[in-house]
């Protein structure tokens, strides 16, 4: 139960962060990607703020286990692989075309914006399509360690 409440609160803070940063506004995101035209560098500071805080949290003296779970789970894969590059490239094309990445797509769907809903449902279809292909990263001993 604590685990579920904590996950909810983390999601809530994450969503508020995206709204405050205006990442839930596709025009703002496209403005950042439009580096060849009039450019809005704001999103660099979103990433900078997030990296600053999480870098510290990640390097705090680590307890043997997380407060509410049995272990810390991290990606086991180390190699730069073709799926990594191809997936990131496809994501980049979609990000540029729509101005949404996954977090903001969920949050702005809850704004009730029809365009956000269309994008969100198409994104779920894309994720489901990947699941149907049954492609699992190879050479991974622990399936739970496949963390994005």
């Amino acid at each position, binding site marked *: 139960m604590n*685990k579920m409440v904590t996950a909810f609160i983390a999601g809530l803070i994450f969503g508020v962060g995206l709204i405050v940063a205006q990442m839930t506004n596709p025009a703002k995101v496209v403005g950042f990607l439009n580096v060849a035209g009039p450019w809005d560098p704001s999103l660099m500071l979103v*990433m900078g703020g997030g990296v600053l805080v999480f870098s510290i949290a990640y390097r705090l003296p680590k307890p043997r286990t997380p407060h509410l779970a049995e272990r810390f789970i991290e990606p086991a894969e180390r190699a730069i692989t073709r799926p990594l590059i191809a997936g990131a490239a*496809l994501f980049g*094309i979609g990000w540029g*075309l729509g101005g949404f990445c996954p977090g903001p797509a*969920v949050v702005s769907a809850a704004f009730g914006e029809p365009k956000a809903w*269309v994008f969100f449902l198409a994104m779920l279809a894309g994720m489901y399509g990947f699941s149907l292909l049954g492609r699992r990263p190879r050479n991974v001993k622990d399936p739970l360690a496949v963390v994005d």
Partner: protein
Amino acid sequence: MDIVNFTPGSAALGGVLIGLSAAILWLSLGRLAGVSNVVGQVFHTSGPEMSWRLCFIAGLLTAGAGAATLYPELIAFESQAGYGQLIVAGLLVGFGTRLGSGCTSGHGICGISRLSPRSIVATLCFVGVGMATVAAWNAMGAL
């Protein structure tokens, strides 16, 4: 280069909140806050592994619905994209983030914080391709 609409304060504050959320998830549940993983793995899992994911998603949705209800005047939402374009974009983002094991949060924030070479390469790739896509789209629109 023309700098427009630059909002450094709210951008940095939003980023700090996202980092804080990732810190809570890491230190309490031992999980990384990558939204494409949290959402995409819902199709693979069940039981407690499913529950925390759905709760995180419920938190995201509550933030959106709450802000739209309580502070509608503070929410900016503007999209030039047509519906067909958004469907293609959504399919690419959904499939691409799963194939590439992450998105802006998982690779861009958590992965870079962990100094993961995979995440650094992926982030450079999706940001670079995203910028090229917008430039190409604008060039086609100008024809």
